[in-house]
């Protein structure tokens, strides 16, 4: 569930870019940072090794004015893709609202894609979250590599669940598909947020009306006696 700053009533969504090592998670954030409007972006922070491999996470805060009267912040994180950093991935997933799973389209990366997706499911379970209950989208990155795996095959191995999620072809190095992916996960999160707040409001209204109905029933019962 999104988190609200109690003081300025800003709604905050946490989006985590997940996927195998070197699939392009950090490249997505770098492209977004360099191409989104200056007024919408914060600083891109990367906790990386000397060789530019993500050690802890990358972080990019984005502002949007899309809900009347409320500020909205999308906090974009990446996780380290290397297998040994699983504990770190678990930490970054804490309080996650939505996920972008970045898959590598190269044939020899299919096994890593599948293992990383399973790892995502396992780590969500540790956060008491179910992959089928949180918004996520798939991004098939590196479509510019020679002979990439067909999209229908990647759908078959990664998007073959009871509910199919949106998937996007991408070349993160030149920006193809990057904003389509970001906008898709942002829309899913907004819709879920609005649905949940409407349900909460309806439940509150029902609770407020319930005692009055009970009281009236009591009066009616008393009258009958």
């Amino acid at each position: 569930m999104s988190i609200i700053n109690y003081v300025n009533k800003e709604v905050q969504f946490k989006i985590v870019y997940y996927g195998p090592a070197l699939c392009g998670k950090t490249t997505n954030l770098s492209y977004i940072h360099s191409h989104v409007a200056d007024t919408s972006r914060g600083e891109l922070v990367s906790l990386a090794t000397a060789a530019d491999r993500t050690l802890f996470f990358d972080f990019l805060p984005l502002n949007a004015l899309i809900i009347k009267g409320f500020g909205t912040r999308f906090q974009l994180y990446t996780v380290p893709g290397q297998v040994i950093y699983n504990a770190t991935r678990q930490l970054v997933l804490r309080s996650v609202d939505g996920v972008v799973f970045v898959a590598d389209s190269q044939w020899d990366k299919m096994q890593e894609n599948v293992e990383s997706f399973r790892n995502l499911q396992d780590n969500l379970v540790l956060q008491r979250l179910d992959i089928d209950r949180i918004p996520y989208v798939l991004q098939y990155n590196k479509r510019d590599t020679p002979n990439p795996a067909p999209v229908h095959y990647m759908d078959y191995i990664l998007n073959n669940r009871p509910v199919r999620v949106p998937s996007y072809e991408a070349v993160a190095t030149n920006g193809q598909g990057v904003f389509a992916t970001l906008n898709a996960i942002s829309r899913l999160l907004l819709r879920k947020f609005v649905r949940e707040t409407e349900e909460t409001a309806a439940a509150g209204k029902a609770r407020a009306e319930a005692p009055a109905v009970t009281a009236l029933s009591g009066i009616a019962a008393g009258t009958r006696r």
Partner: protein
Amino acid sequence: MNPTPVPPHSPADVPAATATNIASPAQRLQSVLADFLDKTQAAFSLVLDRGGAILCQYGNLSGSTDNAILAALAAGSFAATKELAARLGEAEFNTLHHQGKNANILVSTVDDDAVLMTVFGPETTVGLVKFYSVGTVAYLAALLKEARTSPDSQVAVSRHDLTAVGNIFPQ
């Protein structure tokens, strides 16, 4: 000169919302932070969710530091030390102190979901900040518990309030 320390309060002392105390949980959260900064002479306090989102903040930092980045880094740093504590048989370390030449950060556990980050300079001491943080986090924990369920703290939004649902971030 630092104020004379007095014993921290207990959570039972947290003022409840009554007919004579109608401040919202958000206002009372800010009031607790203001009082904490006043007593400690610290510069800035921020209550954050352990996932890195800001719940409330008070005070000022010099420069143009983005609070969202501070929160993300503090949450990550605190979470990492939890793993370190686990290796030593501790559930977690309750406080984390980063000491610099002119700036310090103290991060303290509030509850299972939140931590308090305090930024302070040479005008105060880590001992004083730590001392008052004990009572402050107890206050904050009780207030956050109330705020999480209070209608005053919720955002009432319907689908008609959305101003854009297409390209939220145009390239």
